[in-house]
């Protein structure tokens, strides 16, 4: 169904190009339209997520949460965004100007770029890269540069500590993150997200069933990658005030904030795609004939809810314990998982 919608929109676009006499550069324009649409979608979705996080946390703590702006406080994030954008941009005098300026942009763009390879529905994807998995792993690692330069250039001790913590953390958790995807690649033999979903469709099961260990290690490492609690030591409020974004205010702070949430969206989208069958309907609910897009978003929201529940339930790890957890728990488990998967794949002869 999503396929038809895309065809229809593409048709409309072609007509519009023809009317404006831009048909020769239609290929480039398509890409631009896609990017803008994606940007708009992700921004609105992130605003919704901020609201959702505040509501979820509030109800977990038997509070009400935002309920003043708009119905159920839905427009609260919009009001916050207006406040942040109209704020004076306060910055430290002795900052390192260029990295200080670039860091928030990089933090936002790097995470946002990951979204382009995630298929929302069958054939509804901005760029259906055949190395999608590799691309997403590579591109999301850029955040560490942003956070490190933010921490360094702010000329603040808290920021510096936060930046270094983040560097160590993201580099360490990159490994289990990749290692938990490897078994899926071993089974499917594909690096393309759409192919992975199609494999699950043909196989008749989601990878969360045979690979539940990988699912949990992936969620844990993705939470750490996104600097979310319980792995939020780079911005540990009770220790480092604000961590790497202590000195940022206004729009720049908003970009870090958005970046964090987009990272969550990207991780959840990847997890939903490779472990929960992407756009495939829930088992036994296939008769509903909902568009795949709806199923996909439902799965993404479920994983985001999990990550939020972690944040509002668990305490925060210390920096060395965080490293221990990454290197001594997650990595051995994922490697063991890879070994076992390898044996099974060999035995069943399902390898690519």
């Amino acid at each position, binding site marked *: 169904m999503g396929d038809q919608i895309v065809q229809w929109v593409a048709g409309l676009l072609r007509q519009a190009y023809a009317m404006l006499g831009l048909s020769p550069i239609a290929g480039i324009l398509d890409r631009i339209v896609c990017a803008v649409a994606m940007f708009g979608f992700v921004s609105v979705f992130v605003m919704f997520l901020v609201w959702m996080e505040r509501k*979820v946390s*509030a*109800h*977990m*703590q*038997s*509070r*009400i949460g935002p309920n003043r702006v708009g119905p159920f406080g839905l427009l609260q994030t919009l009001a916050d965004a207006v406040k942040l954008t109209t704020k004076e941009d306060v910055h430290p005098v002795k900052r390192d100007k260029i990295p200080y300026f670039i860091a928030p942009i990089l933090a936002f763009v790097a995470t946002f770029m990951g979204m382009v390879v995630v298929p929302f529905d069958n054939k509804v994807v901005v760029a259906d890269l055949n190395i999608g998995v590799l691309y997403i792993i590579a591109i999301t690692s850029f955040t560490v540069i942003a956070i490190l330069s933010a921490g360094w250039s702010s000329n603040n001790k808290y920021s510096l500590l936060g930046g270094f913590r983040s560097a160590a953390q993201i580099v360490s958790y990159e490994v289990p993150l990749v290692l938990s995807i490897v078994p899926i690649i071993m089974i499917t033999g594909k690096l393309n997200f759409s192919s992975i979903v199609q494999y699950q469709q043909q196989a008749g099961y989601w990878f969360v069933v045979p690979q539940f260990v990988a699912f949990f290690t992936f969620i844990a490492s993705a939470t750490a990658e996104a600097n979310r609690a319980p792995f939020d030591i780079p911005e540990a409020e009770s220790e480092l005030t604000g961590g790497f974004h202590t000195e940022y205010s206004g729009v720049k702070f908003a970009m870090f904030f958005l970046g964090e949430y987009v990272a969550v969206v990207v991780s959840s989208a990847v997890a939903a795609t490779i472990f929960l069958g992407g756009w495939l309907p829930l088992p036994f609910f296939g008769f509903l004939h909902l568009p795949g897009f709806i199923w996909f978003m439902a799965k993404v929201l479920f994983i985001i809810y999990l990550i939020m*529940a*972690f944040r*509002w*339930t*668990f305490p925060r790890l210390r920096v060395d314990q965080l490293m221990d957890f990454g290197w001594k*728990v997650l990595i051995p*488990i994922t490697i063991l998982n890879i070994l076992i998967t390898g044996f099974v794949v060999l035995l069943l002869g399902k390898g690519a």
Partner: protein
Amino acid sequence: MGAIFTYFKNILTGFWNLLLGLSVTTKYLFKKTNTQQYPEEKMPLPARSRSMIKLIYDGEKDQFNCVACMMCAKACPNSCIKLEGVRGPDGKRRMTTFKLDFSTCIFCGYCVEACGFDALTFVSEEYENSVYKRGSLLQDEQAMKWNRPAHLAPKPEEPAKVEAAPAGAKA
């Protein structure tokens, strides 16, 4: 082998305890919230609540109950009560000016307890005491005037003050 066993056992028990914690927060997710939406919903304070000090005004006699005996001023630990009185034509003392500086008042209640003439009281209905100017906190007898509703008046057979003034508070 034992070490490997404990390693996995620790991970599994840890995982279980994490789930236990998650179950608590998830349970509350669907429970009724405890928040009270303050400006819209107002909670009635208990009758004993020490929220605002008022001077009781006797509407029938058209005068304050206060006789300027100075007990409240002496009991106040912060000396925030200033009052003056004169002896009236009928030979009874009457309060002329009464000033209470709420910016230094700590609402300890000693003035109300020390008052033997049923002239000072706490009013639990008025608890929104914030003001825009600090000067407004220095209230005089007109600002503190309170016509006591009939149902709150002490019954004649009962003594005016149930609690005795704390001994020594007036020293």
